[in-house]
Each structure stands twice: as structure tokens, then as C-alpha cells.
């Protein structure tokens, strides 16, 4: 059980609870206030960097707010397999800034929209095969791509520091002072503030920095006054570029990579939100995670169709749910409605666009810092082994080198350069290839497919014994391995019931000193990991729970990941001599 689950007794309103509507609306508004800047500024930054006109910017902001709100509601109230059923606020994804700028410069919003729509379809495929891809696209690959995104986008933030109004006549150092003040505030609040202040730090920095900049003459509030309180943006739908040119195909891999990495982020958020939203101890429900990733994909699809940057889950809402103890679905529904209503307020968009360049640049700078750190955390969470270090180091510098056109740029055909000049694409592809090479080094796995029938048990046991011996297991460890296999196998047989076509794929491989058995089958209702975790001390002996007691006391680790279309049950067993050695006191400390 994670530390979060151990502490979730502070939950006031869990996901299925119904708090008062006013409280739900206020909490929804609180999260919106925290994330509004990101939702609006990210498309503005991308379109400004690409030289888009005000009409295009206003339309992109309108679309971002509308789709973020709609998908936030969809996350809370799923339609079929689309949506998690939890409070996951959606907002524009900063990870798409670099690839979006390149697409905008090459073909404007129509090309960007087409690329986003095409890459969103990959996300649905990824969600459907989540169980398979989860081992291929690991945290080292994800973290490498995230750090490369940060490196690619940071120059944009630096460039924004010097954006000043055309008629600015104040001191030359005004932008520098403004950026410094904004940065000082957010850094001090992050380091010395409590959890709440840390959450609100970027927003406070934007407000204080903007006020400071206003007194230095760096703001232009005329457009804010001219903008209507309620209305539609002046620009119209930009359309889609359906020419499928060479430019489209060379840019598509970059969008697909960012989309998959974004899906991985949503995968993590889909697990994290469950931990802070349910009372008691529960293993993650991976159907919820699939729903979250599907909704993320739907958001990308709709964002592309409407003509704005894709969105993603904002982890801020998870932090707020954890802090406030309120994770009821109503909060997400009200927050989504508020976002959609704000889309129809050009004045709100104009106000955010009026944030001075040095202040907005500082906001983006800090956003990218957090993104960079998140990437490093992902890599470290996977264990920074030598192999993972090589994957990260080679991919990072390959991406950096190609992004800066420093690596044989003149020798490559223009089409190849168009693909490789995006550092995140180059680094991401490099990371996937290297990760695959490392996986070839790992222990070979053995597989067998059998019917879910007691009659198949001898075949399955013979497989485990034979392969276990091949992997060096001997003596009393072999019956333990057979017992673990039999108990997990019979659980699958019970799950199959009367279905004569039910098949189970059993895989066996060594993981360090341990052996891992994995059972892949069609989905079932009960979660074995949850059943074992919920075992109470023996008070009344029953035939029904003998299997659970054996598994809970004998195996080291049970993981039962249930997806919409497949179940993955894995158990790990340690050799007896290692178990005994781990229980002995350390003689050096005697």
C-alpha cells in the first residue's frame, strides 16, 4: 500500500460522494484559477513564436478553453470507455510547443490541426494496447523525451523576457527587473511556502509581476478594455490541411512521439488520482487509466479539429484534491463548465494576453523547469543503472546536437533534416531504439499457451518445472514455484467459468534472483492483488480463501493489472536461501 493510500483517511469527499453544489463549484473554480494561465498562455506562446496574427491566437485560445472544459467534464462523467470517472482537469499541453511552432511555421494552423488529428488516432491505439506498450515505453524513455522537450522550449521563454510594447519609453532595464521580480516570487514561494502557497506560487508571481510591470509602463491594457465580456472570437475556423505533403509526413513522427509521451503522463496521472480519491487500500484500476488516456486522445482529436494545441491532464488538480480532501466528480464537472464558459469571454483571453512578455516568459520558464525536473524524476524512478544512463545520455545529446543542426547537417537530404532537426523526435527515437537493444540483454522469457481448464494443469506445471530448472532453480524451490503457478493458474480457471475458449498465456522469466510468472488472459471481474491485499487474519477457516492465504504468504509480489481488453497477473517468487539470508541479522552490526 502506498504512503498516499495510508494517509487517505483525510478524504472528506471521495470520488463517488456528492458534496454540496456550492462547495463543488468553488473548488472547481479554484482549480481553474490555478490552471487558466497555462491553458491560455501555451497556445499564445506557440502561435506568437510562429508569427501568427491576433485572430489566429484568439481562435486558438477559444478552442483551448472550450476543449479543456469539455474533456474535463468527460473525464468526470465518462462515455463508454472514454473518460476515467475521476477529477482530472485538462489543459493545453506545453510538451507540444516546440513541434507546434515548427508546424505553424511550415503550414499554419491547418497543417498543425491535421498533424494533431492524425497523432491523436495513435493515442487511441496506444490506449487499447496499454498493457503491451507499458513495458516498451518505460520511464527512462519517457523522461528522456520530457527533458528534451524542456531543452527545446526554454529558448522561447528566454526570448519572451525581451518582449515589450511597441511604444514603450521606460528604462531599458525594466524587462530584466520585471522578470527578476516574478522569478524571485515564484522561487521563494516554491522553496519556503507551504503546499498551498507552492500551488499558487506561479499565479501569484504572474499577478505581482504584472502589477510591477504596469508601474514600469510595460503593459498595454487597451485590448482588454476593447474586448467584449461575452462573445465569440473574431477569427473563424482555420480548417485542416488534407494535402498530406512531405512536410506533413516528416513532422508526423514528432507529433506521435509527443502524443505517446503525453499519454504516458496521463497514464501516471490516472493512477495517481485514484490514490487520492478513494478511501481504503486499492490497487490501481487500469480500466480507469485506459479511460483517462482515451479521453486525453479525444481531447487531442477535438483540439485538432477545432484548431488549437492538444491538451493533457494537469497534475495540479491531483495536488488540489490531495490538499483539500475533496475529489468528488462534481468538482470536475463544475470546473469543466467554468472553463467552457470562460471560452466565451474574450475579455478573459485579452486579460491573459496582456500579461507582459517578461512576466509570461518567467511563467513559461518555471513551467519548463518543473517539466525538466519531472523528466529527471521519471528517469531516476526507473533506476539510473549504467544501461539507463547510456540511453538517457546518448539520446539527450543526440537530440540536442540535431536540434542545433550541429551533426552532419549539410550532408543530410532536406527531407531527413526536416525530421531530425526536431531534437525531441531524434532523441525520442534514439531512446526507443536503445531501450529495445537493452531489452535484448535481459533474461529470456519462456511462454506457453494453455486452455483455462484443470486438465491443462499438468502441462502448465511441467512447463514451470522445466523452465525453472533451466533458469537454475533446484531442490525445494521447484515445488514452491509449482505451487505459485498452480494457485495463480486455478484463479484464472475460476475466472474463465464455463467459457471453453478461454486461453491463458503463461510467461516465466528471471528477474534478478527471483522468478516472475505472468498470466495474460481475457479480462475478469475480480482483482487478485486487491483480494490478497484485503486479507484479514485467520479467524474462520474456509475453503474459499486458502488460495489467497497461500499466495499472500508465499509470493513476494503480486501485480494484477486489468485493462478493458486484457488482464496481466504477475507474481514473483524468491529462492528459499535468499529469503532465509534476508531474514538473518546483519552480523557486521552484531
Amino acid at each position, binding site marked *: 500500500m502506498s504512503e498516499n493510500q495510508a494517509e487517505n483517511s483525510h478524504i472528506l469527499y471521495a470520488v463517488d460522494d456528492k458534496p454540496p453544489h456550492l462547495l463543488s463549484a468553488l473548488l472547481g473554480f479554484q482549480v481553474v484559477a490555478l490552471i487558466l494561465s497555462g491553458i491560455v498562455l501555451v497556445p499564445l506562446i506557440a502561435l506568437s513564436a510562429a508569427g501568427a496574427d491576433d485572430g489566429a491566437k484568439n481562435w486558438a485560445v477559444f478552442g483551448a478553453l472550450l476543449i479543456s472544459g469539455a474533456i474535463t467534464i468527460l473525464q468526470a462523467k465518462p462515455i463508454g470507455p472514454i473518460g476515467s470517472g475521476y477529477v482530472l482537469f485538462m489543459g493545453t499541453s506545453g510538451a507540444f510547443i516546440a513541434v507546434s511552432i515548427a508546424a505553424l511555421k511550415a503550414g499554419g494552423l491547418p497543417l498543425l490541426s491535421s498533424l494533431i488529428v492524425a497523432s491523436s488516432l495513435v493515442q487511441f491505439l496506444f490506449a487499447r494496447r496499454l498493457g503491451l506498450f507499458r513495458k516498451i515505453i518505460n520511464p527512462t524513455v519517457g523522461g528522456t523525451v520530457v527533458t528534451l522537450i524542456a531543452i527545446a522550449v526554454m529558448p522561447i521563454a528566454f526570448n519572451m523576457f525581451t518582449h515589450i510594447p511597441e511604444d514603450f519609453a521606460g528604462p531599458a532595464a525594466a524587462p530584466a527587473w520585471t522578470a527578476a521580480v516574478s522569478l524571485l516570487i515564484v522561487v521563494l514561494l516554491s522553496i519556503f511556502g507551504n503546499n498551498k502557497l507552492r500551488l499558487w506560487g506561479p499565479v501569484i508571481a504572474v499577478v505581482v509581476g504584472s502589477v510591477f510591470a504596469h508601474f514600469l509602463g510595460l503593459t498595454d491594457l487597451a485590448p482588454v478594455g476593447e474586448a467584449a465580456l461575452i462573445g465569440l472570437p473574431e477569427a473563424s475556423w482555420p480548417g485542416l490541411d488534407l494535402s498530406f505533403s512531405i512536410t506533413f509526413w516528416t513532422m508526423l513522427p514528432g507529433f506521435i512521439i509527443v502524443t505517446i509521451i503525453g499519454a504516458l503522463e496521463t497514464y501516471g496521472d490516472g493512477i495517481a488520482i485514484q490514490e487520492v480519491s478513494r478511501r481504503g487500500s486499492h490497487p490501481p484500476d487500469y480500466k480507469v487509466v485506459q479511460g483517462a488516456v482515451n479521453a486525453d486522445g479525444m481531447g487531442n482529436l477535438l483540439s485538432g479539429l477545432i484548431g488549437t494545441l492538444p491538451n493533457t491532464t494537469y497534475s495540479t488538480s491531483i495536488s488540489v484534491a490531495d490538499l483539500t480532501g475533496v475529489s468528488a466528480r462534481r468538482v470536475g464537472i463544475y470546473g469543466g463548465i467554468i472553463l467552457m464558459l470562460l471560452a466565451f469571454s474574450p475579455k478573459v483571453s485579452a486579460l491573459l494576453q496582456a500579461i507582459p512578455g517578461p512576466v509570461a516568459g518567467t511563467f513559461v520558464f518555471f513551467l519548463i523547469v518543473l517539466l525538466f525536473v519531472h523528466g529527471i524524476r521519471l528517469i531516476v524512478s526507473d533506476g539510473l543503472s549504467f544501461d539507463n544512463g547510456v540511453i538517457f545520455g546518448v539520446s539527450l545529446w543526440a537530440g540536442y546536437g540535431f536540434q542545433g543542426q550541429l551533426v552532419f547537417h549539410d550532408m543530410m537530404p532536406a527531407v531527413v533534416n526536416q525530421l531530425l532537426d526536431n531534437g525531441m523526435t531524434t532523441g525520442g527515437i534514439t531512446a526507443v531504439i536503445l531501450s529495445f537493444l537493452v531489452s535484448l540483454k535481459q533474461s529470456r522469457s519462456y511462454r506457453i499457451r494453455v486452455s483455462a481448464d484443470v*486438465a491443462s494443469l499438468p502441462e502448465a506445471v511441467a512447463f514451470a518445472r522445466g523452465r525453472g530448472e533451466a533458469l537454475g532453480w533446484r531442490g525445494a524451490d521447484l515445488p514452491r514455484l509449482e*505451487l505459485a503457478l498452480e494457485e495463480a493458474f486455478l484463479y484464472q480457471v475460476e475466472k474463465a467459468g464455463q467459457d471453453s475458449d478461454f486461453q491463458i498465456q503463461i510467461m516465466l522469466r528471471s528477474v534478478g534472483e527471483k522468478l516472475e510468472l505472468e498470466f495474460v488472459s481475457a479480462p475478469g471481474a475480480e482483482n487478485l492483488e486487491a483480494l490478497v491485499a484485503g486479507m484479514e487474519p*485467520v479467524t474462520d477457516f474456509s475453503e474459499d480463501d486458502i488460495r489467497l492465504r*497461500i499466495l499472500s504468504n508465499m509470493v513476494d509480489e503480486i501485480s494484477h493489472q486489468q485493462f478493458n481488453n486484457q488482464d496481466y497477473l504477475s507474481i514473483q517468487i524468491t529462492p528459499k536461501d535468499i529469503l532465509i539470508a534476508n531474514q538473518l541479522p546483519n552480523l557486521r552490526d552484531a
Partner: protein
Amino acid sequence: MFDISSEAGDSISMSGRLDASSAPEAQQFLDQHDGTCTIDMQELEYISSAGLGVLLKTHKRLTAAGGGLRLVNVNSHISEIFGYSGFDKLFDITPAG
């Protein structure tokens, strides 16, 4: 392979593997016995939850009728399984010498 047979007195001998495949045979055999049964597990190599279920069901039936179940010559591996399942607290067990 699994074998179960009657020995001298009320003693029953089990050998081989008492798993899900052989549990029905063992249950059918034990259902024919009443009173207090002693099961010699000297030759029993392996037992799973299915086998433990057979022993539990038999134990409950015999106990309800005033009898019981004794397990003798239980080797270390089988003892370990009894420990995992908590059955070491339920049965009258004599370890192998």
C-alpha cells in the same frame, strides 16, 4: 501422480502430488471414512490449495461427528504450506522424524 490407500487400523496413506487434478479422487476416498482418521504423509511430495480444501472439508465433517483428523510424518515442504495457509493451527500435526 497421486495415490491414496487404507493402511492398518484407521490409517490412510497418501503419496505423490495432492493438487487440483487429484483432489477429487482424494475427496471421494476420504468421504468413505468416519471417526478419527490418521493420514500418513511420509510419501506426499506436494499439496496445493485444492488438497488443503479436501483436508479441511474432511476435518469439518469428522469433527462434527465427534471424530477428527490427524496428520503424521509431515515433511518440511508440506509443513511450510500448512504454515502459509494457517492450517498448522487447525490440524493435529506430527512432523516427519
